C-alpha cells in the first residue's frame, strides 16, 4: 500500500531530550505534507524514568500510539532502553541506537548489573541496526547536548524527506543560539 503509515518510536530516559527530537521529526513530516500524530507520557515518568515517544506519519493517521508489534523504526537514546522496547517493533524493523549507558536505580545501588553485550543482542534480532557514537560526534560538533541531533541525522537517512525540509524543521524547533551546532550535528549524523 502506498499510503501506509510509518511508525517511529523514540525511547530513552526522562530528561534526555526525547520530546524535542520527536517534535522535530513531527514538524518535518508535516512540512513534507504528511498527516502526523505524536504521543508520549509526561509527568512522573519524566523524572529519570523510562520514556517512549510515538511518532506516526502517512496519508491519514488515526491512533496517536503505535500499535504493539508494528514499529518500523526504533530510535534509541540509551542502550538498555533501546533493548527494552524491541518488542514494540515488527520483524525486520530498523534500529538506530546511541551507544550510551545510564544506569537504572538497581544498578546504581549495586543490586543488579547493567546488561552486557546489548548491541550484539539487538543486532541478532534486528540486522538493520546502526550503533551511533552520539556523545562523541556531538562533542566534535561542539556540544555534547547535541547527541540527539546526531541521532536524528542518522535516522533521517532512512526517511524520504528532502534536506531542505529537515533544515526548516530544525530552524523552527531548535533555539537560535544552539542552531548552528545542531545543524552541524545533524549533518554528521546524516553521513553515517
Amino acid at each position: 500500500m502506498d499510503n501506509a503509515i510509518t511508525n517511529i518510536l523514540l525511547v530513552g530516559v526522562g530528561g534526555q531530550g526525547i520530546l524535542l527530537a520527536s517534535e522535530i521529526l513531527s514538524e518535518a513530516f508535516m512540512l513534507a505534507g504528511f498527516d502526523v500524530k505524536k504521543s508520549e507520557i509526561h509527568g512522573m515518568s519524566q523524572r529519570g524514568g523510562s520514556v517512549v515517544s510515538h511518532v506516526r506519519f502517512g496519508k491519514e493517521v488515526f491512533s496517536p500510539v503505535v500499535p504493539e508489534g508494528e514499529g518500523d523504526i526504533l530510535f534509541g537514546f540509551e542502550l538498555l532502553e533501546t533493548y527494552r522496547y524491541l518488542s514494540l517493533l515488527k520483524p525486520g524493523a530498523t534500529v538506530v541506537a546511541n551507544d550510551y549507558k545510564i544506569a537504572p536505580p538497581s544498578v546504581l545501588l549495586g543490586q543488579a548489573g547493567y546488561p552486557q553485550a546489548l548491541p550484539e543482542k539487538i543486532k541478532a534480532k534486528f540486522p538493520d541496526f546502526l550503533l551511533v557514537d552520539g556523545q562523541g560526534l556531538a562533542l566534535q560538533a561542539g556540544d555534547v547536548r547535541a547527541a540527539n541531533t546526531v541521532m536524528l541525522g542518522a535516522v533521517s537517512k532512512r526517511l524520504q524527506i528532502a534536506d531542505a525540509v529537515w533544515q526548516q524543521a530544525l530552524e523552527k524547533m531548535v533555539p537560535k543560539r544552539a542552531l548552528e551546532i545542531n545543524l552541524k550535528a545533524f549533518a554528521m549524523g546524516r553521513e553515517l
Partner: protein
Amino acid sequence: MKEILSGNEAIARGAYEAGCLVASAYPGTPSTEILENVINYKEINASWAPNEKVALEVAIGASFGGARALACMKHVGVNVAADPLFTASYTGVKGGLVLVAADDPEMHSSQNEQDSRNYAKFAKVPMLEPADSRECKEFTRLAFELSEQFDTPVMLRSCTRISHGKSVVELGERVSDLPAPKLVKDAPKLVMLPGNAKVRHPLVEERTVKLSEYGDTAAINRMELHSGEIGVICAGVTYQYVREALPEASVLKLGMVWPLPKNLIREFSTKVKQLFVIEELDPFIEEQVKAMGIACQGKGLTSLCGELSPGRIRDAFVKASIIEAAASEAVTVEPVPPRPPNMCPGCPHRGVFYQLNRANAYVTGDIGCYTLGFMPPLNAMDTCVCMGASISMGSGIVRALPPEEQKRVVAVIGDSTFLHTGINSLMEMAWNKAPATVVILDNRITAMTGRQENPASGFTLAGDETSEVNIPELCRVLGIKHVRVVDPYDLDATRLAIEEEMNRPEPSVIITNRPCCLIKGAGRFEKGKILEVDQGKCTGCKACLRIGCPAIEWKPNPDGNKGKAFIDPQLCTGCTVCQQLCKFNAIGGRK
C-alpha cells in the same frame, strides 16, 4: 495556517479563538499545559488558583459578569471542584463557561483512574469529547457557544493521549463580536436559595432533553458507514483506536458523550448486524444504550481498567471470534532492570525521608514529587490518598493509637499541596489538638507537574512578581504553637528537629526551606560545589547509597566482591547530603 499542536495547546487555542476572557486552573497532569499556553494569549486573563474549586469559582464569577471563561483540571481535580459545579449547573451562565477535565486512564501520573463522564451525567451538564488536536480546538470553541445557547456550563473531556498527543491543526481567527462584560443583577437565576433553585431544577431537566435532541443532528456526532456486519459506537481517542484496529467496521463517532443522541443511536443500530460500544474505563455509553432496549456488547470484550489501544481492541475482537487473527510473529526480549522515576540529584526531600526512615516514623504522605519517597532505598512513606489528606489522615490516625504509637505519626506535604487543601487539614489538626507532627516540604514551587508557581512562590503564571504566602506565619495563625524551619541539606539539624517534634505531645510543624533543584533564575536554586569520591579513602561501606541519589553509582571491583562509590559530576548538584553520610571522609569537593 497549519501547526502541529498538542491537545492541550489546541484547547488553549480554541479558548482564544472563542473569545475567552478569563481562565483559571490548578496544575495537574495531563491538564497542566492548557493554562501554560493560554497565558501566551494576551487577551485572556489567565492565572493559577490554589485549588480546582477556586479555579472553577473564578471562572463562574467571570461568566456571571458576561465573559467567556475557562477552568481546567485533571480528573481528580473535578472531585475538588464538584461542589460549585453541581450548582453552576442550576444557575447556568451569562458568558460561556467551559470546564476542561483531563482523565488519565492507565494512571500514568495519577492516584486513580476515575471516568469524568460520570460527573457530566451526575451534574447534568453536557460533555464534549474530542478525538484529536483539531477537534480539541473546534470542540472548545463549540463548547463556549453551546454553553450560551443552552444556558449551561459545558464540560470538555480530554485524556492523557489526547492532551499530550500532537496532530495537525488549522488555526482560525478570534471571534470579535461578543458583548462586553458588565454587571447585571439577576438574583432569581444567580442566587441559589431553595426557592430559586426549585424553579431552576426543572429547567435543568428540560435542558438535558433539548441537548439530546441537538445531538441527534449535530455534526459532532456522525455515522461513518462501512460494512453492515459490525458497528461500533465510540468517542474520543477510542475512535482513533477503533478506526485503526477495525478498518472495516461502521462507526458512530460521538463528539457529545452526555447527553447521548438517542435517536441517532437507534438509527445506527438498525444499520449493522452486531452492535458494539468500545470505551475506556466505565461502561458509560453501553449502559445507556442497553437501557434504551438496544442489544449491544461492550465491557464483555474490553477491560474496565486502563487504556485501550488498537492492539487491545483487535485482540478482544479476535478472542471473541468476531474477526480473524492476523499472522504475526512477536519479537521477545529478555527481562532487563526496570527504570522507575526517581527524585532528582540534590532533591531537598531526600535527607528528610532518610531521617524519617531512621526515626521509624509512620509517614502519612501526600501527592507530589515527594510521593516517590515511598520507594527504596528511602522507604519512607506509608499512605497516600489525595491532596491535602496527609495532615488530616495523620490527625485521624493518632486518635486511634496508644500514646507511644502516636509519637510515630508524621504527615509530609509539599508547599503547593499545603496551600491546595492542606490548610484546612492543619486548621483541623490544631483545633482538635491532634499530637501529630507535620513536615511541610517547601521547595518553593509546584514541582511534580513541571514547576508551576503557587501562592507561596512569589510569582504569577505570567511570571510577574507578586505577594508570597508566609507559610510559617500561616501555620501559627492556624493555631500551631510549635513551628520551626530547618535546612533539609543539614542532616543533623533535620534529624534533631524530627526527633524533638515527634516527641512533643502536641501538634507541631517543621518546614524545610531549600528550593527544588529544577527551578532556575536568580535567587532561586543555585548549584553547590560538585563533589567526588576519593577512591583511596572509600572503603565501600555503601552508606552513601542509602539516600538513593542518582548521581552516586556503585561500581563493583572487577577482581573481587568489594566495590566503590563514584559520583557522576554531570549529575551532582553539590547538596552535600552524601558527604554527611560518609564516616570515612571519602567524599569531598572536586579539585
